[in-house]
């Protein structure tokens, strides 16, 4: 090893991402770099393009323009009539396996038990040894606090438990980056805390996370950086506490005022 580098390497780097749906330009040139271990909170009004941005990162949505690099590997593109597409499906699958995603609606596989949900991709996508995956899945489920639910089906769990199972499922792939798209928005208020606690624990162990959230207090306390998205552009990007205390843009000020009213 050489001398340790002063800044950690880039986990994800996005340059000038653009995406339109028909006439609507949803992302208008978004650039963002997250270094390893960094926790980035992404705030923005409904329709500002937060979900679209996250989904572009693992190519669930194909951006019209812009570059995406995950763990040092840049997505390769190929021109096709009507736009560009990823050049190599294998690369896309590989990249997705390195990026864990947690959805607002959990999206667990209802025909599999919690444990089966967690080992599904490690066994079938990564081709790892089943016994090893089961042992690791059990440890992950214990970590998110639902070890006793491992043989239950998703429908038998509360929303908070399902979301924690979904987090365990994403972690089981050993992702380099975790993406969260409003992970607590579909939960009863009294269930929000248990999911945020798990996410905080992940942040503290140094995971790279991009979190779309409306939980301003969580963003302030846990994130290293706050990004405010407005109409497909990054309007602010800075340390959470300062940015929230003294927003530079009117947009963010209005947004935060509305959030506080919503919370109160």
């Amino acid at each position: 090893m050489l001398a340790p580098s002063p800044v950690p390497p880039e986990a994800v780097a996005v340059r000038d991402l653009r995406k339109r749906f028909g006439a609507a330009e949803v992302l208008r040139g978004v650039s963002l770099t997250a270094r390893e271990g960094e926790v980035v909170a992404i705030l923005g009004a409904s329709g500002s393009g937060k979900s679209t941005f996250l989904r572009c990162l693992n190519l669930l949505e194909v951006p019209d323009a812009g570059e995406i690099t995950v763990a040092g590997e840049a997505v390769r593109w190929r021109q096709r009539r009507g736009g560009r597409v990823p050049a190599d499906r294998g690369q896309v699958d590989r990249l997705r396996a390195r990026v864990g995603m947690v959805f607002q609606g959990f999206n667990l596989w209802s025909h599999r038990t919690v444990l089966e949900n967690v080992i599904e991709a490690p066994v079938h996508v990564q081709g790892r040894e089943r016994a090893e995956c089961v042992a690791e899945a059990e440890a992950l489920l214990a970590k998110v606090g639902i070890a006793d639910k491992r043989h239950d089906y998703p429908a038998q769990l509360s929303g908070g438990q399902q979301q924690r199972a979904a987090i365990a499922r994403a972690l089981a792939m050993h992702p380099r980056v975790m993406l969260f798209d409003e992970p607590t928005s579909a939960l009863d208020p009294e269930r929000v805390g248990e999911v945020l606690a798990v996410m905080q624990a992940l942040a503290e162990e140094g995971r790279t996370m991009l979190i779309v959230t409306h939980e301003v207090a969580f963003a302030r306390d846990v994130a290293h950086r706050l990004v405010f998205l407005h109409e497909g552009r990054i309007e602010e990007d800075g340390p959470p506490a300062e940015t929230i205390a003294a927003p530079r843009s009117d947009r963010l000020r209005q947004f935060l005022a509305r959030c506080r009213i919503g919370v109160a």
Partner: protein
Amino acid sequence: MIDIAFLAESLRALAAGLPLTLGLTGGAVALGLVLAGLAAAGRLSGIAVLDGLARLYVFVFRGTPLLVQLFLIYYGLGQFRPDLQALGLWWFFREPYWCALLALTLNTGAYTAEIIRGGVLAVPHGAVLAGRACGMSRGLLLRRIVLPLAARQALPAYGNEVISVVKATSLASTITLLDLTGIAQKLIAQSFRALEVFVCAGAFYLAINLAIIGLVRLAETILAPDLRRPRPV
């Protein structure tokens, strides 16, 4: 007035038609499922030509009576005997058994294609998204997520379809085949005792369908274990 001895004799005579009825059912259901899988894949492929072909197939075979299809294949194609002989296909279309199997297969394939398509369309989008998000290839996604979820959705309707194939095999008797119904008609022509004979034939069909209902239920417990388990109240 019911003649027990005659009933017993009818049952024994009808039992001889059982292999034919079961063979036609099993053959049509198995081949129809393959055909339906191809047609459903065509419908869902997003490729206009394949979609159009599958649509046409389903439209034609769902939109016309099975009896008409059967007569067209057996009697209608019989008019092209020289051509079929030239093509080396006459051995097939000469036999009422193959014609019945073909008509039943084409017919159930059309219905089953729609059942499969409905099941696939009912798979929650989030489940597919989650699969793609963890790097599943298309084949893996289909095998591990989409088809199992679609199968549970489609199973009740599919059970109905298998049962209607059992009943539809009785039409084979119209092209000289001696299945359960064919034998029943022969017995009635000899004895003029329609009630007893048809009661016996009906009992055979009921017994077959009872077994099918059992099999469907078994498939349900295998494919949908989470629905079987009682949820906490």
